[in-house]
Structures are given as C-alpha cells and as structure tokens.
C-alpha cells in the first residue's frame, strides 16, 4: 500500500485537480456557454501562487511551507481570477456557441503570450522552486479532496436552487428565459465568474503540486483537454465532468502500466510503451461514439431503480 501511494500519489492528486477543472468548465456550460477561458484563469492562479510563495511568503519556520499560506494564495488567486472574469465575461458573453469558445481561446492565448514576455512570470522557464507544504505528494489530498467535494456539493446544490435553474433555463432557451424575467447577462457572468474562481484556486494548488509554473500550463491544448473531460464524462450533470477528469487523466498512466506487465509478447509491450497514445486517442473516439451522452447521464439518477441500461 505504501508503495502504491508513493507511486501514484501525484497521479491521484492530478486526477482530482483535473476533475475540478472539468467542473469549472461545466459551470458556464450549465447556461449553455461554451467557454474555454478556464485554462487562462488556471494559469493566472498558478502564477499568483508561484509568485507569492517564492517572492512574498519567504519567511516561515520549519522545513515545510505552511498550509495556511497555500490557502491564502488560493483565496488571492480566486479573487483575482473572479475579478478578471467579470471584465472578460461582460465583454465576451454577448457571443454565442463556437464564437464564444474561440473568443475565450483568444483570451487564453493573449495571457500565454503576455506571460512569456513579462519579467515577473519568468519568461519561458517560468517560476521554479515552489515550496512544498507536505512531505509527500499524496498529502495534497488534504486540500484537494475537500475542495473537490465542496465544489461538487456546491454545483449539486446550485443545480437545484433558483439561480441554477435559471442557468439551465438559459441553456434550454435564452429568449424564453428572458421572457419569464431571468436576466441572462447577470446569470451568464455569474456562472463565468464562479468557473474562473474555481480554475484560479486549482491553478494555485497545482503550482505547488507541480513544484513549478510556466507558460506551458495554460494553453489551447489544456483548454481542449478540459473540454474533453466534460464531454467524455457527460455534460448534463455535474458528475460527468468529475468522472471525465478522473478517467481521462488516469487513462494514459494506466496504459503505461499495462506495458510493464510481465509476459507480454515483445511487440505488444513495445506498442504499449511507445504507442500508448495511439490507444488513448482510439479510446477517446470509441468513448465518444459509444457514450454520446457522456459516461454519466442524468438518466442514471432518475431511473436508477429501473437501471437495466447495459452501458452502465
């Protein structure tokens, strides 16, 4: 067990972080807004934590960086990301569908290029030597797991209160929602801001988990990855992005481990080692085709008594 935890500690923590990034993308999607800006807020949060912990909070007693400082960084990152999100949101949320997706990608790219060019973010090398609040990677679960559970609980509740229902109403039909007195702009910006706060907090924690932060963290690729979490997991219930984030982060590592099993024919072991991403891509295609609603669908909750659905 100790061996298992030391080998997979980092992986388990990164799976949980991925689940939260999925949730972050899911929030605006509740109101039908496909925003990929999360990667940018994630990058921003990471930079804030990396800068605070290496340049500001440099005096503390003991070997380990105080957990309370990490929490402060996360709060600062959340506030900064939320504030920026309100500005970007008011500007961009007039756009719809793919246009909004691309506008938010433009935002992510602009942030990336900025972080490559200004001094405080360390250019291409980024910021390194981010201090560790824990002795082993698995202990990050003390922060990550409650954070995931809280954000899941939050979104779960949100889906059932007035504000959340308003978001879903906007997704289903914006004009109809507006006609019954829902303010679409307010609700969309709200969802966008909540999403940014979550992404910013996750970024702040990730900077510690990764020991370092650089411009390669918040990119187009990362944003598309987060989108895949949601769509593979299921975009109609908060559980979908969580499962999608966990599964898609685990998959390449599980394939890596398959290659190490004793007694495989050499060609197969070699294929698994060097070609495992081919399988990964293939599984994504097959997953999308066979589970067009995502792995987790709302139907699973509603008809669980009669759940004879062979796909579960």
């Amino acid at each position, binding site marked *: 067990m100790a061996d298992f935890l030391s080998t997979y500690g980092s992986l388990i923590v990164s799976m949980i972080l991925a689940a939260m990034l999925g949730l972050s993308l899911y929030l605006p999607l509740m109101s039908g807004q496909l925003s990929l800006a999360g990667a940018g807020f994630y990058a921003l949060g990471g930079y804030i934590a990396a800068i605070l912990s290496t340049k500001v909070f440099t005096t503390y007693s003991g070997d380990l960086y105080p957990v309370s400082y990490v929490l402060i960084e996360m709060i600062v990152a959340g506030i900064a990301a939320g504030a920026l999100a309100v500005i970007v949101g008011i500007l*961009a949320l007039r756009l*719809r569908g793919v246009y909004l997706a691309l506008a938010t990608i433009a935002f992510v*790219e602009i942030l*990336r*290029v900025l972080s490559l060019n200004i001094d405080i973010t360390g250019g291409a090398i980024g910021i390194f030597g981010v201090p560790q609040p824990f002795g082993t990677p698995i202990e990050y679960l003390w922060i990550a797991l409650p954070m995931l559970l809280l954000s899941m609980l939050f979104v779960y509740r949100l889906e059932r209160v007035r504000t959340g229902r308003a978001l879903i109403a906007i997704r289903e*039909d914006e004009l109809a929602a507006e006609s019954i007195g829902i303010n679409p702009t307010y609700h969309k910006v709200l969802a966008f801001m909540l999403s940014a706060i979550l992404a910013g907090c996750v970024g702040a924690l990730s900077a510690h988990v990764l020991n370092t932060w650089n411009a390669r963290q918040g990119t187009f690729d990362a944003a598309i990855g987060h989108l895949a979490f949601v769509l593979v997991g299921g975009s109609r219930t908060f559980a979908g992005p969580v499962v999608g984030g966990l599964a898609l982060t685990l998959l390449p590592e599980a394939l890596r481990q398959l290659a190490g099993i004793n007694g495989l024919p050499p060609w197969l072991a070699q*294929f698994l080692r060097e070609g495992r991403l081919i399988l*990964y*891509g293939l599984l994504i*295609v097959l997953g999308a085709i066979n589970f067009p609603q995502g792995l987790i669908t709302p139907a699973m909750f509603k008809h669980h008594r009669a759940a004879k659905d062979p796909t579960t």
Partner: protein
Amino acid sequence: MDATLLLQQILNGLAIGSVFALFALGYTLVFSILRVINFSHAAVFTLGAYFTYALTGGAFGFNGLLANAQLPFGLPFPVALVLGNILAGLTAMGIERLAFKPLRARGADPLLALVSSLGVAVVIVNLIQYLVGAELYTFPAETYGALPPAVNFGTAEHPVQVRTTQLIMFVVSLVVLIALTLFINRTKIGTALRAVAEDETTARLLGIDTDKLILLTFFLSGFLGGIAGTLVGASVSISGPYFGIAFGLKGLAVIILGGLGSIPGAVVGGLAIGLAESFVPGQYVAYKEAVAFAFLFIALLIRPQGLLGRAVIRKV
C-alpha cells in the same frame, strides 16, 4: 514606413495568408454541412505533407517501425502533390466514417464531434511518430526545378525580395481557391452541396443523397488541408508529427474571423490574419501571436458573427 517595406510586408502577408485561407477552407466546408468543427483537420494537414514527401521518393529516418523506409520510385513534385493529397482526402473520408457518421446516426450533441475528431488527431499524430519517428523532413532543393530562391519585386537599391516558395504558395492557393469556387457555384454537385449546407432536411426531401455529399465534403476538406500542409512543408520543412497542430488554432481563428461556414469569409479571414501578422513591427514580434488573437477578440466584439458571416436568426 517607407514604400518598399510596406510592399514587402503586404507580399509576405498575402503569401502566408493564402495558405491560412486554404487550410481554413477545410474547416469551413465541413462546418457548413455538418455544423461541427473537425479537430482532426490539422492532423490531415500534417499527413498530406508526409504523403507527398513519401511519394517524391523521400527517405524516412532511423526511428520508428518503418525506419529507413523509402519508396522505390520518386514522383515529380506536382504529381506527388496531387496524388499525396488525394490520399489525404481519402483519409479524411475515413475519418468521417469512423468519427462523425456514428455520432450523427445517434443524434449526439454536435459538440461531441469535437472530442471524437480530437481523438482521431491524437491517433494520427502518434501513429506517424510510431511509424516514422519524430524527425524533421525537408523537400529537396530541386523541388521547384531551376527557379531562383527569391524574386526581386523592387529595384536593385530598394529590393523587395520574395521567396519563390512563397510565390508558389500564393499561386497554388489562388488556383485551388478559384477552382473550388467554380466547382461550388457552377456545377450540379456544387449546387447540391450548397443546398445541403442551407438546409439538410429539405435537401434530402428533394432527393439529394446527403450521405455521399458529406463524404465528398470531407474529401475536399482533406485535399485542401493536405495541399496547405504540403506547401508549407515545401516552403519550410515538415517539423515532425506535430507539424500541423500549431496551424490548427490559427485556422480556427481564420474561420471565426471570416464567419463560420462562409467560403469567401475563410479567404478574407486568412488574408486578414496573414497581413495583420506581417505588419507587427520588428521589436514587437514577440507579441505576434497575441496580435492575431487580440485582433480576433476585438473583431468578434464588434461583429459577433464574423466579418462575412450571416447573423443567425435565433429561435423565438
């Protein structure tokens, strides 16, 4: 800014912009018919360049399953360009059958096609690497025969040098664009394509075989994307299996800027981004990528449906 520099920058912008346009048209064609973005398009761009390289008799490197592979013959570049990208077009048809049709058949969320085509892109990129390694490949210097490396559009004192490969990029793109426009506007199949793009259900009621047309669209898309990849590959080099991925995002910016599903929009968008990038002053070249996207962001705020896109009527 003096006149020669201005002219130089316009020529540079047009050359790269025309390739952006060619590449982006592949996205646009598929989008206009299926209302989905095909994320595997950038991988097909790469594949087209590899196919053409192989057909010209180029040798592969010393890594991967097919280490040292080389065809026993070498075709002249123009022939290889056409044949190689017919292969790219056929691959795109295969992608349609594998990753798009099953989703349509199940009536899935169109967004899901993003994910399945993304999966296909991952497969293609890694398959290339598994088979022929991550090496760089360059077309031989004699690809364009005895043409000089650059042509001077200015005077001896005020040279406006344009590389021959850029001119070829521009000319080939232009020819393909014109041919495509004629095909879509003047032929029966083109009319049918436009009908499907306008309203698939009605088109089907009119007896148009939409399934065949979708296949044709993917073929055209793959063919155009592959040509764009080959032209860029011949102008610079094929920088490995991830060659096209950097273009993927740029291509998306182009079609959004031009207006989704609009063919003239893709051309205008491509040229606009090419020109915008070439006018970034030297000392700010570090911000070049950001300029293209800031341009896009602002353009979208002013015209949410893109430069030449039609405003979509929202349902009431």
